[in-house]
């Protein structure tokens, strides 16, 4: 039995780096802090590789052949009651290790990349300390042993994303975006919290192993109808999913993601493409047994929301011009697919194909999407704009970027034999088994994906040769290297026999490639590709015509279906003007007015009675005598009755 307690280092190292660079960062040179951060991440990366190797290959499986869940570390952090307590620890099981690999790898890449990308930026040190803070939080989230630890790190990733989006804090748009991101996710987190409260109340535990174990209290208790005809568990799972939806930018909580692109590109690559945004998926996967066993309704919600978000985002992505926004929407759509996959999945064996597919897609998507973002970063770095119309014909200036970008595009469009093809294929297969309609919806989505990705690709690298005031040049080594590494991973990741490692019930199984699903998928992908080629390889007017032909719809899509405007209306108008302002007024005038009113009344009274003190001796005497006589009569009356 191997001792995994060293995995605690995976959390500690970035924390230490963050604290150090946060406190003393400005003592030493910017570059140094960059180096330190990267080195730290390298160590963690190696550690997680080792962990993965040891876990999958050296640790013996449990009796029933499952990968067992190991509590590598578990320290009591806070006690609520004898039953309920928060522990801080490291939980090792297939998905957490998978996420470990993803996070550390991408984060490591991004660190290297950033050394080049952020070079000479003001606040270089700050950037890296925030990066390590994020890595710490994300890793903590991934390896959480109980739902409350997850919630804690959940909040932490939220704040580090806030800090990183608002990195250029002098730019108002960035500040606004970061604020938006934080508040929207915070709102979702409230849902998550309520979910946790209900869950902990019914099951009396936070612990994942207990919760998802075979005789979980969640299965026994919490079945009773609680509210509006749904069982306690269903409600709690729905609330939890709201939290997940907020982080993973599912409709209608997605609005923060596009704006989040205000952050530096490496950040977008790390947080808003590969790691944090998939936390929602990971959360649902974490609690998957509960979803399948006791909250099928909640699972359906996940499915529908996922499906809708994927198609919704895909449509918008076709209409955007800011390359990062396109990528953002594509991320949203891809995550929607993952959610969808979870939603359609059953539990155990081949039933759990969707689960596996979702995790697989998460895995591959993390790499090619971060690759896309980093490449985009390289492009922006080269041409200092991120509007695609102002680009074109860059392939001869940026050969490496071009090549890697192309690979990523093919991969995301699901063209074999790239990694995207395999994972997406599994998802479609899983969807096919669940519901035909949604299967086709996802087909369309993958078609659209291919279309808008290549729309992006062509309008950046081909199309008209735009004149740039200074010739774009390839990015520095630190950046290109990472691009290449990621491209390689993207090429190969698909061949990992994923289902042998990750499955809903942790029992390895063989997921075979089903041509009846694969072929149409590929075909759809290719169609999208060809249409895009047709439209955008050269300057054509077709897209414009189509845009106008679709009229209102396309305009709506261009305006992201006015969701932002709606939110703005609700927050600014309703809450700010019609709730908060009246309350402030009420407090000043009614509540406070009552208090001042008291004093006013007293003053008034004291003024009114002054004439009793008229200074007239005889009036005094009158009061005196009448007082005496009145008392006498009063008490004589009182006494005789």
């Amino acid at each position, binding site marked *: 039995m191997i001792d995994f307690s060293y995995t605690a280092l995976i959390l500690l190292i970035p924390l230490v780096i963050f604290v150090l660079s946060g406190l003393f960062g400005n003592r030493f040179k910017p570059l140094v802090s960059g180096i330190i951060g990267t080195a730290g991440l390298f160590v963690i990366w190696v550690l997680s590789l080792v962990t993965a190797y040891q876990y999958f290959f050296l640790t013996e499986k449990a009796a029933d052949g499952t990968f067992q869940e190991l509590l590598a570390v578990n320290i*009591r*952090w*806070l*006690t*609520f*009651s004898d039953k*309920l307590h928060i522990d801080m620890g490291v939980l090792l099981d297939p998905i957490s290790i998978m996420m470990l690999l993803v996070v550390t790898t991408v984060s490591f890449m991004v660190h290297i990349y950033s050394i080049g990308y952020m070079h000479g930026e003001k606040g270089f040190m700050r950037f890296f300390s925030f990066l390590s803070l994020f890595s710490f939080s994300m890793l903590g989230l991934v390896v959480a042993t109980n739902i*409350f630890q997850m*919630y*804690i*790190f959940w*909040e*932490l990733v939220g*704040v580090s994303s806030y800090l990183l989006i*608002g990195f250029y*804090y*002098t730019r*108002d748009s960035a*500040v*606004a975006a970061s*604020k938006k991101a*934080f*508040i929207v996710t*915070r*709102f979702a987190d*409230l849902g998550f*919290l*309520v979910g946790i*409260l*209900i869950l*902990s*109340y019914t099951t009396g535990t936070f612990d994942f192993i207990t919760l998802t174990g075979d005789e979980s209290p969640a299965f026994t208790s919490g079945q009773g109808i609680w509210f509006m005809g749904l069982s306690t568990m269903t409600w709690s799972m729905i609330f939890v999913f709201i939290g997940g939806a907020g982080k993973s930018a599912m409709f209608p909580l997605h609005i923060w993601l596009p704006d989040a692109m205000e952050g530096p590109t490496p950040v977008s690559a790390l947080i808003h493409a590969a790691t944090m945004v998939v936390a929602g998926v990971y959360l649902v996967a974490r609690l998957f047994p509960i979803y399948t066993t006791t909250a099928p309704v909640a699972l359906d919600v996940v499915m529908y929301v996922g499906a809708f978000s994927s198609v919704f985002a895909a449509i918008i992505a076709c209409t955007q011009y800011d390359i990062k926004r396109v990528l953002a929407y594509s991320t949203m759509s891809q995550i929607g697919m993952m959610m969808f996959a979870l939603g359609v999945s059953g539990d155990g064996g081949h039933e759990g194909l969707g689960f596996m597919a979702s995790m697989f897609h998460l895995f591959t998507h993390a790499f090619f999407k971060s690759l896309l973002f980093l490449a985009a970063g390289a492009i922006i770095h080269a041409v200092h704009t991120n509007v695609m119309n102002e680009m074109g014909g860059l392939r001869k200036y940026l050969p490496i970027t071009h090549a890697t970008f192309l690979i990523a595009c093919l991969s995301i469009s699901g063209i074999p034999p790239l990694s995207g093809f395999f994972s997406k294929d599994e998802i479609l297969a899983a969807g096919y088994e669940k519901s035909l309609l949604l299967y086709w919806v996802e087909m369309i989505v993958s078609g659209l994906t291919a279309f808008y990705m290549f729309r992006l690709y062509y309008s950046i690298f081909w199309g008209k040769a735009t004149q740039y005031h200074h010739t774009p040049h390839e990015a520095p080594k630190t950046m290109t290297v990472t691009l290449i590494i990621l491209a390689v991973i993207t090429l190969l990741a698909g061949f990992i026999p994923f289902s042998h490692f990750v499955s809903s019930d942790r029992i390895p199984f063989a997921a075979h490639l089903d041509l009846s699903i694969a072929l149409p998928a590929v075909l759809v992908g290719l169609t999208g590709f060809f249409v895009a080629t047709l439209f955008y390889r050269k300057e054509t007017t077709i897209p414009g015509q189509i845009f106008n032909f679709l009229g209102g719809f396309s305009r709506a899509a261009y305006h992201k279906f006015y969701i932002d405007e709606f939110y703005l209306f609700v927050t600014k108008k309703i*809450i*700010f003007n019609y*709730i*908060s*302002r009246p*309350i*402030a007024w009420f*407090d000043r005038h009614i*509540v*406070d007015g*009552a*208090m001042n009113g008291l*004093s006013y009344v007293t003053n008034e009274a004291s003024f009114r009675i002054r004439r009793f003190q008229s200074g007239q001796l005889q009036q005094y005497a009158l009061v005196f005598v009448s007082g005496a006589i009145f008392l006498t009569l009063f008490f004589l009356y009182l006494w005789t009755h």
Partner: protein
Amino acid sequence: MSFLTLFIIIPALTVIGILLCKKHMQVKWTAVVGMGLQLILAIGLIFLFLAERRSGNMDEILFIQDNVWYQTLNIHFFIGVDGVSVAMIGLTALVVFAGIFASWDIADLPREFFTSLILLASGVFGFFISLDLFTMFLFYELAVIPMYLLIGIWGSGPRHYSAMKLTLMLMGGSALILLGILGLYFNSAPDGGPLTFDLIQISKIQIPVDAQLFFFPLLFVGFGVLGALFPFHTWSPDGHASAPTAVSMLHAGVLMKLGGYGCYRVAVFLLPEAAHQLGWIFLILATIGVIYGALGAVWQKDLKYINAYSSVSHCALVLFAILIFNETAMNGAIMQMISHGIMTALFFALIGMIYGRTHTRYINEMGGLMKVMPFLAVAYVIAGLASLGLPGFSGFVAEMTIFVGAFQKIGTFYRVATIIAASSIVVTAVYILRVVGILLLGKITNPEYETITDAKWYDKISVVALIFGITLIGLAPLWLSDMITGGLGPIMQKLLAVAPILN
């Protein structure tokens, strides 16, 4: 003779020392030394207490000292601490210490300023250590009165009005408390025997329920006024807005806790039946207060008003948690008091420092301060994050304990109340980030701010001390929560005796 007496003696000596001082600097340093000693003493107390507990000394109250004071009325000078009061004392010492440094550049009548400040502090310390209702009340008023001078002389804005309003409202509260205490006193021996003010002794006996029903509202509202119970909170915005920095710190950080502590230690502890029967009324008020304060803060433009309203919200959360009557929530209430105490003190300290540099508290008149005063700005962001309940800071621990505890309570009424209260965390995020965004981020709006200097050494001391406090609790809350839980035993017994299904 328990060493707890030092908590009153040291401030007294400090005051005398200050009065003897001639020079400005001497005054300050005397204050620093005195309150530094106090802080050390408090930390020592915490360690001693934990050591005692670890060594298996499970008495309800530790370090008892009991001297008869007024024989005929059976008034004692009876002091002692349990986990809860130890925590509160620690909080007080920290905040006062920071407050001394935060008011380093008081120019006008420094001697009088520090005298009143430390008088206030001594009142608070006395309140927390005393177990005799009479002395408790004595210290309570002793803590409230210096406020008038502190705000009235060294305050800003409509300081005379605010000072008078604050003093009178708080004294109104204390009037109710006095009546309640008398009620307790005369019911303290239902079956003959000498009457007593002794809190512990009273807690052992059973006060007639009809008496309880009469006196519980008096006591709860009386303390609630200081605990900013809606709708008796309106002294808080004005008072805080007009008060000088250190005073806001002490007031919001410590004095308002007297209210919560009193509700917990006197009203609920001694009158459990009434608390159980009437609790729901105040629970509704508290819940309103939580959300109302938060929403009220969103609209404000004056930094101090924003923080005052957020204090209303947070303190209402304390009362809310107390009224849930189960151990977890009660624990959360105490922790919330402490965390909010440090947090809001930090806030007011920073606001004061910013005001001292920009000479305005209106957020729209400021902007982009992050560039010119990074230290203060970062500290402000930290305070903000702590206040919106970010993990790693004390606020999160307290709030989560409260919410989890409250949700364990049977009954849809409580569930709904809990969820409403919990929804305040979103609103909090809104107004905190609004301020941070307008105040610190963005470009510098006012050119004359280009030349502003960052924090001085004394500012840094007070800020760092407080930040250390919140992060310490935020990162390692277990010792604190265990210490507090240890102190909750008796009250839980009484409450459970009233209604067995409270948990």
